[in-house]
């Protein structure tokens, strides 16, 4: 029932995949740069409200979305910028949404916590912890019933393990053999509380108890994530039913952009360790260089391009107009 992802550095996994591993690198860098800009917008008081940054967790979203088709579904969380970009959304309309502009993905009505994009199968970020577990499971039900071969990936943080509805839908998904993948991003903290204070027993055991295929993976290793994702996605496509993936990772910044003083719940030392020893981008960069898939200059170019792309996207958003107030009453009913 419970299986761990096999090490992924095997030559085979890599060799004929240069394009893919360069693409995943680029995607991770784009997410990192996107979040840098978000933090910038916040500190410059250009962004209304708050945002929850995905920095440090890039390998999870990228490794998994690399295994999906554009029309496969995802549901995302309050920490959703990474999922959204990895699934294919464009940063300009994302920034526009973060600033509440009409050009945003949700015409400014959703903001950071509710970006949705039908074009890339993104059913939406959700500001209710665990709020989308039913939606993802239902999308998988529809995909199976309509026979369109799609799968649904439900991203959530380990804090969502506290929501009973997760267990209700895992039971349904297994009973009905639905093509849904539950991805638990374990970044160790539910807001300001360490997950060990909120999580009894084991995480994987909770999925295995309902009969789901359950696996853990190093969430800082984009290749490992992608390998296990590819396997469980194929399994789901072939009628094998749902799976649960625990990706161990870490968020670099605060719970949200305003969470500056964190020592009372986690140490600078711990943060430093993850940033220097376990950074998914650096680790993948080293691997790319070691395997001769890229040299320092190439990687530098990727960063430069991504940074430029995000700066331009921010400019677009800053210059974009707000919706006219009469739009407030539109879109309540279809």
């Amino acid at each position: 029932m419970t299986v761990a992802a096999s090490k992924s550095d095997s030559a085979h996994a890599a060799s004929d995949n240069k394009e893919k591993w360069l693409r995943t690198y680029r995607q991770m860098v784009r997410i990192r740069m996107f979040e840098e800009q978000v933090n910038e917008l916040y500190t410059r008081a250009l962004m209304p409200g708050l945002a929850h940054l995905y920095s440090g967790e890039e390998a999870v979203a990228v490794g998994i979305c690399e295994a999906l088709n554009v029309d496969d579904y995802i549901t995302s969380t309050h920490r959703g910028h990474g999922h959204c970009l990895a699934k294919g959304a464009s940063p300009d309309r994302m920034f526009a949404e973060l600033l509440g502009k009409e050009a945003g993905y949700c015409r400014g009505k959703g903001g950071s916590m509710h970006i949705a994009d039908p074009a890339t199968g993104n059913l939406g970020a959700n500001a209710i912890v665990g709020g989308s577990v039913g939606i993802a499971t239902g999308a998988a039900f529809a995909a199976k019933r309509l026979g369109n071969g799609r799968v649904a990936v439900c991203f959530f943080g380990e804090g969502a393990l506290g929501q009973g509805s997760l267990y209700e839908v895992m039971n349904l998904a297994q009973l009905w053999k639905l093509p849904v993948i539950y991805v638990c991003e374990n970044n160790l903290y539910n807001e300001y509380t360490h997950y060990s204070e909120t999580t009894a027993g084991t995480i994987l055991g909770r999925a295995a108890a309902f009969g789901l295929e359950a696996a853990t993976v190093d969430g800082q290793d984009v290749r490992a994530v992608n390998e296990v994702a590819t396997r469980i996605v194929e399994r789901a496509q072939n009628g094998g039913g749902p799976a649960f993936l625990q990706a161990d990772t870490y968020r670099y910044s605060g719970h949200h952009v305003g969470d500056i003083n964190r020592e009372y719940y986690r140490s600078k030392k711990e943060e430093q360790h993850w940033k220097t020893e376990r950074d998914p981008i650096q680790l993948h960069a080293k691997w790319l260089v070691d395997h001769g898939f890229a040299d320092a200059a190439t990687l530098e170019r990727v960063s430069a391009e991504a940074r430029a792309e995000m700066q331009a996207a921010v400019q677009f958003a800053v210059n974009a107009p707000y919706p006219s107030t009469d739009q407030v009453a539109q879109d309540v009913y279809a």
Partner: protein
Amino acid sequence: MPEVAIAERELTFAQAVREALAEEMRRDSRVCIFGEDVAEAGTPFKVLSGLVEEFGAGRVIDTPISEAGFTGVGVGAAMAGLRPVVDIMFGDFLTLTMDQMVNQAAKAHYMSGGHWRVPMVMRTTLGATRRSAAQHSQSLHAWFSHVPGLKVVLPSTPYDAKGLLKTAIRDENPVVFFEDKMMYKLKGRVPEGEYTIPFGVANVKRAGEDITLVATSSMVHVALGAAALLEKEGVSAEVVDPRTTWPLDEKTIVDSVKKTSRAIVLDEGYGRYGVTAEIAAVIAEGAFYDLDAPVKRMGAMHVPIPFSPPLEDVTVPTEETVVEAARKMCGK
């Protein structure tokens, strides 16, 4: 009443609901039903009997006792191309579905800037006097009427039940459809042919001159019974059934009261902070210069519904209490 015009045949309320579902499932393969004991059992009320035999276990689906979970599945299935009809056996269990209905279903369209849609129907029940006590007797439709993004339907006759349910299933938005448990065996004319009833259009169930009785769901029958008694006393009561509390047909209600200059609002939900408050406020505002007396509100007594029959019976408005109130208002 429209029934008189076109109807030929009599069906029970339960049969009318079943026929609406069967017709819609035949015309649209995306329609499917989720719920507890909805398949072979056809629900404890037997409303769905026969559907699994015609449409199969792939479209009439028994679920575990997971109201929050399968409601959420309904929301996602609707967003991804199906038209689920989610069955919540007793309206009291809606308490378990509020997050999915209110934070997800009701808001997905708006939050996505109009991109995603949730064409889903939640069928559930309301009503007391079944000797089922406090956790199986509530009428919680006011909560949903309070939430933008949802539509709320309260059919009072087999004819309305069929026409409104077909409209609900074809609607692009989440609709909560409340059926009074005590009305399932109620018979009424239902035409053979295809028809639908638009939302937001109240129905004058009985014309009158002296007082308007605005009533929902089972209270429509209490109002009609009271109207018949009042007629003997020379009081002509008009009975207006909004049929949907959201959208609400304010005009028909207000116009009726402008004509009669008196109004009683009847609803089986709690009277305080409920449907009677909204409709009374709408009347007091819209017919302000025409009212001869304050609008009278009659809802469930503000107590958990007791089990003991003599106690339960006094918690809901009856023909007698309505007649008495109407008499007073008309100065008789």
